[in-house]
Each structure stands twice: as structure tokens, then as C-alpha cells.
């Protein structure tokens, strides 16, 4: 620091010795509180607030029963997104990485989820089932792993071949899988699955991880998100349902998802691991925000760009402070 600069610095640090004016901060605070309360009240009266009812498995099965059915088959076959997710739910996938850092995998399995059992078999077993479904259930339970796998995977493939149109699927040896899927679809349609998935045999439950993952495996939630303009690739992170403002303060976070290489899943390593890279980038930038007073260049921007002359216009005028010369 030059002598000049350090003299200025110590004056800036010391209590102000110059002119003062009357200033009633308590009154200012009370008036501000009144104004903000009134503004909030006005906005609430005229605009209300968003509240789209939550989606249910019942609604899913009623509106698109084939999609629900197909998703149930994928859970059994292990081909759904959740079944192959990896940490923190299972070890079926390696998860994302940040170069050599496999943080997702290293964090381990904290919320074990077995998509076939948790989403299909256990719920089916917790309710009295029609004879046909009960028989399918016991066949499944006593079958060898290879058989389960073969039935479900073959059936899943047969369903994909006809684009998930259940009535059009080719007949074949799918074991108990079609009956299980039918049984689960019936449970979903009746609304029973909504309660069972949450409780899983218990009474109190405050964790909805299983329902959210199961939902996400199908098209119902995704379609609803698209319809409401909430998809991440189109700034959805900042949006709210209806005509309401969302988390606009996430604009910078959201921005990365719109531009290459982050928005291209095919591009390696960044696009394919976009979630991890973007979170790390934002963590880094947040640290930058906090540390601005210490970052050379950035911290002198507001001194070089004279917006401060507008902010303190009155003071600069009365004191007659001249413009800084370019160095």
C-alpha cells in the first residue's frame, strides 16, 4: 500500500470526523416495516399464491395406466432410472464424477432402495390380493434370480418394442411379471398404493424419497413438469407453477444448464457430469462472492467505475469532489 492509500485506509477505518445530519433510524425502520407490510398485503390480496395439487399414483394410473404398468415392469427388470441410479440409493451405477473425484459414489448408500422390492413386491404383499396376483407374487418370491431377471427383462423389451402399448405386446414367457404389473396398476388405480408406498408397514412417515423416485421413473411427473414449463433445460429451475415468479435468484445456477458444454449430455467430461460440474462451479463462484473484498481487480472495479458518484451525488456535489484521472 502506498503512503496515500494507507492514509486513506486509516481514515476510512476511523470514526467519521466530518459533518453529520439528524437521522432517526428507529423511525426509518418502522416506516420501512409499514411500507413492506402494505406492499406484501397488496400483492397477496391481488395476486394470491401458487398451489398446484400434488400428483398421486392414483392420478398417474388413471391418466396413463399403460405408462404406470410399463414403469412397474421396468422396476422389476432393473431398467428404470432409479434401479440403475447408484449412490445414495444403490450400487447399480457409478454416479457422476468431477474428474478424478467420484464424490457421489464415495458418499455411499445412505438411503437404500431396491426398486423391484420397494416399489412393486413389498406394496403388493402388504395388501390382500386377488388369487391370481397372490399366486404370481409367490411364484416371483420363490423364483431364482436369473429367472426373475429373464422374465422381467424380456417383458420390458417386448413392451418397448410396441412403445409401451400393453394390449399390443407379443405373447411370450414372462412368468408372473404381467400379473404383478397388473396387480400393482390396480392398486395404484384404487389409490391404495399412495398410502402403502409411504408407510411401508409403519405408521409415522416423513420421508418421501421412494415415491419421488418411483414417480420420476415414469412419464407422468416429467410430462407435468414440461406442461408447467419447469424443465431445467428451459430455465425451469427459476420457474413457479402458474403465473407466479419462482426462484429468480437461481438465475446464474440455471444459466449453466442452458449453454454448452453443460447442456449436452454427450459431451465428456463436463456435459455428461453437468450436475456435478455446475454445483462445483457455483460453489466456487459463491466463495468468490464472499471473498470479493480480498480479490484484486474485482474489489477495485467499483472504485474505477464511478457509479459511486451517482450513489453519493449529493455529497460529491456539496464537497465539490472532482473526477478521478485515468492512470
Amino acid at each position: 500500500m502506498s503512503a496515500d492509500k494507507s492514509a486513506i485506509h486509516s481514515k476510512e477505518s476511523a470514526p467519521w470526523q466530518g459533518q453529520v445530519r439528524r437521522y432517526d433510524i428507529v423511525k426509518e425502520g418502522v416506516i420501512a416495516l409499514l411500507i413492506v407490510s402494505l406492499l406484501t398485503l397488496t400483492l397477496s390480496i391481488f395476486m394470491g399464491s401458487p398451489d398446484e395439487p400434488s400428483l398421486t399414483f392414483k392420478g398417474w394410473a388413471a391418466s396413463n395406466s399403460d405408462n404406470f404398468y410399463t414403469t412397474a415392469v421396468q422396476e422389476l427388470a432393473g431398467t428404470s432410472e432409479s434401479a440403475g441410479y447408484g449412490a445414495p440409493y444403490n450400487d447399480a451405477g457409478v454416479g457422476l464424477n468431477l474428474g478424478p473425484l467420484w464424490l457421489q459414489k464415495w458418499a455411499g448408500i445412505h438411503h437404500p432402495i431396491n426398486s423391484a422390492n420397494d416399489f412393486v413386491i413389498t406394496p403388493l404383499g402388504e395388501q390382500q390380493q386377488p388369487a391370481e396376483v397372490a399366486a404370481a407374487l409367490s411364484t416371483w418370491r420363490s423364483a431364482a434370480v436369473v429367472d426373475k431377471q429373464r422374465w422381467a427383462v424380456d417383458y420390458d423389451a417386448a413392451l418397448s418394442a410396441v412403445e409401451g402399448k400393453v394390449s399390443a405386446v407379443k405373447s411370450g414367457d414372462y412368468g408372473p411379471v404381467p400379473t404383478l404389473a397388473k396387480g400393482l396398476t390396480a392398486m395404484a388405480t384404487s389409490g391404495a398404493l399412495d398410502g402403502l408406498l409411504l408407510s411401508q408397514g409403519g405408521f409415522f412417515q416423513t420421508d418421501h424419497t421412494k415415491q419421488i423416485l418411483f414417480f420420476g421413473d415414469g412419464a407422468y411427473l416429467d410430462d407435468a413438469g414440461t406442461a408447467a414449463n419447469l424443465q431445467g433445460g428451459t430455465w425451469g429451475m427459476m420457474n413457479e407453477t402458474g403465473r407466479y415468479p419462482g426462484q429468480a435468484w437461481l438465475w446464474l445456477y440455471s444459466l449453466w444448464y442452458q449453454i454448452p458444454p453443460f447442456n449436452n449430455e454427450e459431451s465428456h467430461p463436463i456435459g455428461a457430469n453437468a450436475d456435478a460440474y455446475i454445483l462445483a462451479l457455483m460453489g466456487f463462484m459463491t466463495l468468490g462472492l464472499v471473498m470479493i473484498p480480498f480479490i484484486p481487480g474485482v474489489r477495485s472495479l467499483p472504485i474505477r467505475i464511478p457509479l459511486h458518484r451517482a450513489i453519493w451525488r449529493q455529497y460529491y456535489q456539496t464537497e465539490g469532489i472532482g473526477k478521478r484521472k485515468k492512470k
Partner: protein
Amino acid sequence: MMSNKIETQKPDMWTARLRQSWQKNLPIEKLLPDTQPAYVASWIYVFGVLTLSALAVIIASGVVLAFEGPSWYHISDAGRFVNSLHFWSVQLFFFFMVVHLWGKFWMAAWRGKRQATWITGSIAFVVSIATAFTGYLTQTNFDSQWIAFEAKDGFNSVGIGAWFTVTNLGQMLLMHVAFLPLVLGLITVIHVLQVRRKGVVPPIDAFDQTLKGVNK
């Protein structure tokens, strides 16, 4: 042997030391001053107080919502109205805070040993974002289903998701109504006390003698 007159001003007493440093750094005249430097005359100064006011409205409306439980507002008109108050005060809070942040940036308001004010402020910003985010997750409606589904991938991808579980309503609710507001409240108090302690930062060229009186 006990003496009648105990030495209370001993600098090696923790209590005495705390009191002395408090009295020195933040006497009541600094905490509640009735004058301000002449340069505190700009609309930008109002935004800190507006942010604080919006936070007060958020907390007040949030307390009412908390007393009735997280799904009250789905089924009650009064609940919906209080929810609207909570929603809009949050929107106003962020608007005021962002203007405040940019204002303080362009004033380089960290000058003169005021870095801690900037740091506590920016941490308040980050904690506010986390608090709002957990609030969106506790709406118990379609929006929170969607946000939980989308956001889990981000947190999982760097391992945080193992502990900070956006799909766990119970955890998010406690974060939103207890832990995060507590942290935000604490940081805000420290932030505002820092401002009072240091006094409002002088204008950028206030002490540059070479520029003084040039225009007069």
C-alpha cells in the same frame, strides 16, 4: 481471606473482558445513534432496512403457517392468504437484498476494515437461498414434488445428497422452519451490528485530497 472490595475490573476475567470490549466497540450511542454522517443521503441506504423489514414479515407470516402445519394452506382460505403473505414477502426480500448487495458492491462498502460486514452479508444471501429452497420443498404440492425430483440429482452428484436429502420432507421442513431461519437470523444480527459498530462507510473519494474542491 475474602476482601470486602473484590476487584471487578481485572482484565483476566472473561466476563469483564467481554463487557469492556462490548462497551468500547458497541456503546449504546453507536447502536442507536441519532445522527449519521452527512453523506448518508441516498436512496440506496434504504434497501438494507427494507430487506430487514421483509425478513420480519417473512418470519411473522411463517410463524402463523408453522402453528397451523404445512398443509393447512391447501384447505383453508385463511391459510392460503397467510401463505400468500409468506410468498410475497420472500419475493420482496430477495428483490431488496439483491439491490442492497449491488449497492454495497458499487460503494465498495468493505473499505476501512468493513470486510466482515460484506462477508456476513453475502453469507446471509447464500443462507437465504437455502432457506427459500427448503421452503419450496415443504409446500407439499406439485411444485415441491417436482423440485425434489429435479434437485436430488444435483446434490447427489457431489455426495451432499447422502445427508441433505431433498426428498425427505421431514428433514426439509425442520431445516426450513428451525435450523436455517436460526442461522439466517443470527447472521443478520451480526451483520447489522457490524454496520453499527464500524459506522457507515464513507464515500469512495472522501479522503482523496487531490480531488477535493476541484469543481468548486
